[in-house]
């Protein structure tokens, strides 16, 4: 008797490893996973439908509530799209401060992703170390923007608050502490024999598969794809940004890419604060009618806002494409089937840094 599918194992929606509800249905033969299906709808709030017909002042706050983990980049991409529509120029000091806020958010997000991974493979010590380091980063985000999560820091034509010199000094001191701690954590992760056993060669996604499902962000960069929109952003180009790439494409590579990007972000913030130009942080301007599609690099990858506005600055139509859509899809349909056993499904899924709130909006 030939049997292809033994059991269909459902994981979720409430699962100890998952921070957000999502349901995976894995069809297995023995320990091997043959096919995986995703059931979503647990986080579908219909935010694009709410945004339609509202003035940009409201959409700005809605945009950062698409995702709480990477709220700064949602704010930034929406505002820069509005600026592109309305031809508003940003003062150089504000442009640099935007990079500082964005990179702080990226560090916090990457550390949280790596925390989730360590927690999933039950290395709780390293996970708690990482979570503690993240608090220091969030303190600095709060020092700059006044809030920990939903900051609403950027507005068309600038940013809300200036960075005071004493705050900048405190931030630099904190960052060197974070860097020191992260070096230690990276060493623990890189050289730990059990972590390597649990991570290396598991959930491999090759270059071709990464391209087929349009993978973006650290997930794609771990498979050797060149895709970092910061390479095209004018402020980042001034700062001399280069991309981190690894070629293994397994869980270990994805986590290591995030660790390496944390150091890169720390360097970028340092460079920003040292070369911070003088001048105002708020320009001015009017939001006009127009239509554009603007993309920026979120912690998880490429984030695109397609916006159409009318003469009063109201958003007539909006479509958001978040990075998690591509990454979760690639993870579920390329990484998990055939390569891994059922025991590795949770770790592989978490290693692609899934953000279900982004994915469904």
């Amino acid at each position, binding site marked *: 008797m030939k049997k292809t599918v033994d059991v269909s194992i*459902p994981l979720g929606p409430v699962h100890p490893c998952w921070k957000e509800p999502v349901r995976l249905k894995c069809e297995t033969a023995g320990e091997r996973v043959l096919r995986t*299906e*995703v*059931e*979503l*709808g647990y986080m*579908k709030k*219909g935010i*694009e439908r709410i945004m339609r017909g509202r003035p940009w002042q409201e959409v700005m706050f809605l945009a950062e509530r698409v995702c709480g983990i990477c709220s700064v980049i949602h704010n930034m991409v929406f505002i820069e799209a509005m600026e592109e529509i309305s031809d508003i120029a940003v003062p150089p000091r504000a442009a640099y401060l935007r990079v500082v806020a964005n990179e702080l958010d990226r560090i916090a997000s990457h550390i949280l992703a790596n925390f989730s991974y360590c927690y999933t493979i039950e290395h709780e010590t390293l996970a708690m170390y990482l979570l503690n380091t993240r608090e220091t980063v969030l303190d600095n985000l709060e020092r700059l923007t006044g809030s920990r999560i939903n900051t609403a820091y950027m507005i068309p034509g600038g940013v809300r608050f200036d960075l005071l010199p004493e705050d900048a000094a405190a931030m630099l001191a904190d960052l060197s502490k974070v860097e020191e701690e992260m070096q230690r954590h990276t060493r623990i992760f890189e050289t730990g024999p059990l972590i390597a056993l649990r991570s290396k060669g598991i959930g491999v996604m090759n270059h071709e598969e990464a*391209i*087929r*499902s*349009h993978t973006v962000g650290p997930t794609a960069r771990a498979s050797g794809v060149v895709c970092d929109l910061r390479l095209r952003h004018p402020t980042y180009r001034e700062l001399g940004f280069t991309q981190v790439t690894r070629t293994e494409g397994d869980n270990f590579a994805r986590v290591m890419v995030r660790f390496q990007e944390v150091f890169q972000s720390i360097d970028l913030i340092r460079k920003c604060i040292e070369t911070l130009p003088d001048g105002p942080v708020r320009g001015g301007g009017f939001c006009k009618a127009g239509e554009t599609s603007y993309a920026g690099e979120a912690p998880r990858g490429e984030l695109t806002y*397609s916006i159409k506005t009318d003469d009063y600055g109201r958003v007539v*139509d*909006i*479509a958001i*494409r978040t990075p998690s*859509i*591509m990454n*979760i*899809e690639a993870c*579920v*349909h390329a990484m998990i089937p055939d390569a891994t056993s059922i025991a590795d499904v949770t770790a592989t899924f978490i290693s692609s840094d899934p953000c279900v709130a982004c*994915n*469904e909006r």
Partner: protein
Amino acid sequence: MTGYLYEKDLRQMKYTILASTRHDETVRAIARHLGITEAKLRRTMLRRFDMSLLENLESRWEMGQEHADNGDPVAEELGYELFTRFVPLVDTEVMQTIYNETKAMIQEGSATGEALERGKERVREAVLS
């Protein structure tokens, strides 16, 4: 037997995904490419695709336009890789049969246009089946 625990009819939620602006454009583009009506294509998609594939439809289609079937005119016309690997509407074996038979028809000497037309008709049938 009682019903499945937790299993729910997902069609309404799947339709909500397809109804957003960019996805609607993509569905229209695919329907135009295949030459079938949008409603029929939507129904097929709701049946065949899981929810994350539906969410990712637009970027997969975009990448398919760019990377699929480069170089082979017959495969490009039929959408060989496009409809099996990028937007998996057709099973690989079915598509392989259609592709082989179309190739054979062209080699036997029938008009290229006619053979491709027959092939596309069969792809259409495979999508709707």
